[in-house]
């Protein structure tokens, strides 16, 4: 099933390469079909998922490069399950949102689907090399999508994005190889299987380096302050559909990597660095929110608000307890839904008004009552109104931080920083919503109309999910919990100093 979910978009990419560039009808049906099918299968997966089982489910293993014991190995647990479904969902929306593109339609679609496949793969790969391949597969399509179809300083933005991310991922590659060499030394068996490697008890000094190699890649991807400076450029230059996947799905890969790899593999290093990294996350929460207040460009405003919200997610992870990490995973889903809906709204407004500058907007609610209502709902969710989904995540995260043992010394300060950012969020989100939709405006173009049926149906799922998750988050949390508990209580059965003879642990 997982293979189907990941490879259907890739197959569609191959098909698209043989389709006539002018044949938009076929291109549309192939890409919508592929993204839709992927989403449907992922939903079926969701239904069949066993919520009581903390370990990996739907696993698939095939030998890939037998000499190095590299396997094609996939599986999902309660953490990756939601990110997988989220990615399939956001990608489907992104594909639908790009249907009226003109220039290079076929190539755009092909690259978009390739990006989807890469992101999906990251969340299900259980073999480190496979993970790395998907990780890089996310990068390449993004480079071209922003470089070719972007706007503004797109070459600068995309180069910066790729180089920045590449620095991280190459370090990670070194880390991956080093890690498996350590295992090889101890057991004389080469493996890249993450489920085996996590049981290794690595010497704290080595952990420190390995952690830094892995963490840099993830921290850049999230991004954690102050490694965020690629994000505003990339987001502002990026076409909206690409942006949806960037913010909705790909930004979660970093935090996911920390939960999946850093915490179970390098617990000592995490404890050593946790306090500092959490400070970066908390600083980013305030920093992003503060800059968002000063932004007038709608895209940049949402981009900086994303930095703030992603900071919450990173902070929750380093609380290193159930509430914090479960809140973070939930918040990844929430942020994916909310931020992508916000960017869709920005895209709609820009398409209709020809500008993204907030100063040029005013009083649009009068002629766009439907968008008004949906925009308001998403705004309220984004500023963390209790009763909607954003609040549940932020509450759990901050509660986790407050009660965290790792952050105990500074948890009060971190929570206060989070609280400040929540106040700021209400300021910049209301600036944005009220500035665009309220007050009196006599100069609204007469041609301006409310959103059409298609745009409505793109926003509707987000609006519904925002309410449902806000009212009843239990079904999601219940599936996350067991897996998070198992990540936090991983057993280090393979002791490298004394256990050289114990090799072959399976």
């Amino acid at each position, binding site marked *: 099933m997982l293979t189907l979910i990941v490879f259907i978009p890739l197959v569609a990419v191959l098909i698209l390469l043989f389709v006539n560039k002018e044949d938009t009808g076929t291109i549309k049906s192939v890409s919508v079909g592929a993204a839709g099918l992927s989403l449907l299968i992922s939903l079926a997966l969701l239904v069949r998922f066993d919520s009581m089982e903390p370990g990996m489910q739907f696993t698939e293993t095939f030998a890939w490069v037998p000499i190095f014991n590299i396997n094609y190995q996939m599986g999902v647990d309660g953490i990756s399950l939601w990110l997988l479904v989220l990615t399939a969902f956001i990608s489907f929306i992104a594909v639908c949102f790009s249907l009226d593109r003109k220039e290079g339609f076929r190539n755009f679609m092909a690259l978009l689907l390739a990006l989807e496949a890469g992101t999906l793969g990251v969340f299900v790969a259980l073999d480190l090399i496979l993970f790395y391949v998907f990780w890089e597969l996310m990068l390449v399509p993004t480079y071209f999508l922003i470089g070719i179809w972007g706007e503004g300083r797109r070459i600068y933005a995309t180069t*910066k994005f790729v*180089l920045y991310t590449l620095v991280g991922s*190459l370090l990670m*590659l*070194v880390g991956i*190889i*080093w890690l498996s*060499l350590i295992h090889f030394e101890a057991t004389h068996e080469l493996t890249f299987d993450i489920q085996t490697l996590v049981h290794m008890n690595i010497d704290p000094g080595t952990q420190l380096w390995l952690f830094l190699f892995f963490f840099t890649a993830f921290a850049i991807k999230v991004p954690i302050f*102050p490694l*965020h*400076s690629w994000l505003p450029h990339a987001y502002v230059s990026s076409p909206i559909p690409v942006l949806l996947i960037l913010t909705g799905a790909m930004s979660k890969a970093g935090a996911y990597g920390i939960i999946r790899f850093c915490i179970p593999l390098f617990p000592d290093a995490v404890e050593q660095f946790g306090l500092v990294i959490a400070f970066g996350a908390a600083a980013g929460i305030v*920093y992003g929110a*503060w*800059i*968002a*207040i*000063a*932004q007038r460009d709608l895209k940049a405003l949402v981009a900086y608000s994303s930095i703030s919200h992603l900071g919450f997610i990173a902070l929750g992870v380093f609380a290193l307890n*159930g*509430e*914090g990490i*479960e*809140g973070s995973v939930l918040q990844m889903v929430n942020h994916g839904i909310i931020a992508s809906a916000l960017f869709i709204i920005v895209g709609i407004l820009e398409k209709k008004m020809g500008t993204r500058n907030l100063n040029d907007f005013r*009083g649009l*609610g*009068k002629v766009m009552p439907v968008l008004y209502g949906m925009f308001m709902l998403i705004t*309220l969710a984004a500023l963390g*109104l*209790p*009763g909607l989904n954003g*609040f*549940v995540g932020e*509450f*759990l995260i*901050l*509660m*986790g931080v*407050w*009660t965290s043992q790792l952050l105990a010394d500074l948890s009060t300060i971190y*929570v*206060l920083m989070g*609280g400040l950012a*929540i*106040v700021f969020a*209400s*300021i910049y989100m*209301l*600036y944005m919503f*009220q500035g665009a*939709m*309220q*007050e*009196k405006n006599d100069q609204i173009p007469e041609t301006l109309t409310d959103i059409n049926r298609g745009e409505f149906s793109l926003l509707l799922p987000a609006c519904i999910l925002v309410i449902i998750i806000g009212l*009843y*988050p*239990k079904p999601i*949390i*219940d599936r*996350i*919990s067991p897996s998070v508990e198992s990540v936090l209580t991983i057993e280090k059965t393979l002791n490298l100093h004394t256990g050289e003879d114990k090799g072959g642990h399976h």
Partner: protein
Amino acid sequence: MFTYCWLILIAPVTGFIVLSWYGNQISRERAGLLGCGTVGVSFAVTLAALSELVLDSENKGGVSTLYNWVTAGSFSLDLSILIDPLSIFMLLIVTGVGFVIHVYSVGYMKEDPEFSRFFAYLNLFIFAMSVLVLAADFFFLIVGWALVGLASYLLIGFWREKTSAVLAARKAFVMNVIGDVGMVIAAFIIFEHLGTLSYLDVFAAAGSAFRPNDDTILLITLFLLVGAFAKSAQVPLHTWLPDAMEGPTPVSALIHAATMVTAGVYLVARCHVLFDLAPYTMYLVAGVGLITAIFAGSMALVQYDIKRVIAYSTMSQLGYMFLAAGLGMYSIAMFHLMTHAFFKALLFLSAGSVIHGLNDEQDIRKMGGLRHAMPITHVTFLIGSLALAGFPLTAGFFSKEAIIINSYHAEMGNIFFWAIAVLGAAMTGFYIFRVYFYTFIGQARTDVHAHESPFIMIAPLLLLAFFSLTAGFGGGMVDEFLVTYLGTHMPHPHDPLLETIGVSAGLLGIAGAVGLYMTGKDRLDFAKQMLAPVYDLLFNKYYIDEIYDILIVQPVRATGAFLKERGERLGIDFTVDQVGIQIREVSRLISLWQSGNVRSYAFNMIVGVVVVLMFVVFQ
């Protein structure tokens, strides 16, 4: 046991959903009927619960749980409501006064093109307030707390084309978010120490977990107070309330006088077990209440907007409630909350009737002589004013005098508290009768031909006027009903001297207004000249808005702009770019030996990986 009480929540939220979804497809009559009907259902159900509690003296209420809402880590929470005397008492006011104001709104908003949206928001408010009151734990308290803030935001900014309304709505929202954050942090501390957020468990465990005045309990109560003060517009988080008068008048009556702004007082009463353990905080509660009482009262003395005067009056009366609560007299605070709900709603609705009759005029300098054109409104406004001023035997008399007299006789009371409270009472009598004389007495100062409001607006006025006159006699019943939760009876100290002074203070204020506003303009002008500096200070609301602007708003904005322009672009971004540029320079030198770019990149990459790997292997 009380499962049917969920209807209190379900009815208004149904109204909200139907009205906001189908609002523009159904007629005004039906929208109004639906809006009022759903609140009527809530009120009826509340009455049923009340009768169950009253008729069976053994029945102290209970918790009704629907299902487990979330479990994450060690945090677990059920979706449940708590039915007990305090919540039912509060709900009676919310749904009862709410229902009356809904009916009034049918007349008041008749001409508004967005009639059904208004009722949708009003229903949302009733729902949110019921969540706040019925919550059985701190989490859903916060949910309700924020949702009433949302409803308040939506209704303040209801006329969304009016810039001042839009700004006022945002201000109210942001200040209330500050309060919400305070409450959330209080919940964290409670959870950290007691491992639960459920009221009953927290209150049961608090006594043994905390020593009086220990740091933790002080922090909990202080953070709770941030929420309470923000919601109830107490100094220094009060500046949003006068601006909130931008909303339609029924909103001011319902949300910004009778119900939502009293949530802070309700919170203190609800958590009295915690506050009893924190006498230091209690002094703060009483002190802030007292300061707000005279601070707001003094500003009310000189305002010309009829609604703003009543708004400052609301702040001031809320101050009295906090004073009572801070002195440990929770039942008196709740009693005053109830009488205040009646007479303040009455005053607002009467003011609304005036505004309605004068085609949206709110400046009292342009009113005058309305007693002839609007005889019923005149009487109801007078009754409301008398009750507010504490005129003997009106509702306000019983509750306010109880607070004033006990501010001396309570365990923590003293003559200082009492004196300020009396001063506030004198101000109250003065400012409300100043408005009364300006509005209803004398000659008309405008050409607008005033007309009395329709029956659908008059009937609610008469009903509220009745309660403003009689509710004071129900003090004993209120006390008896609430004592099972609050634990202590209302004290009834006997002190004829202080009582007489207290009552005369209000009358003296009235007399002062008569002296200045009834008997000639000269004296008024003279007084204004003599007190010019004070007058300016009061008229400009102590310049608090300006001070906040300079101390908080401007620095926040400037810092944001600074971070955006300097920190981000010239700081972080520049540094990162420099790293890239330097590397490019170096690699350009290296690549001189290479033939093509692609190869050089590949070469560099491989060299890099190999070097690091060698380091790893041979270390």
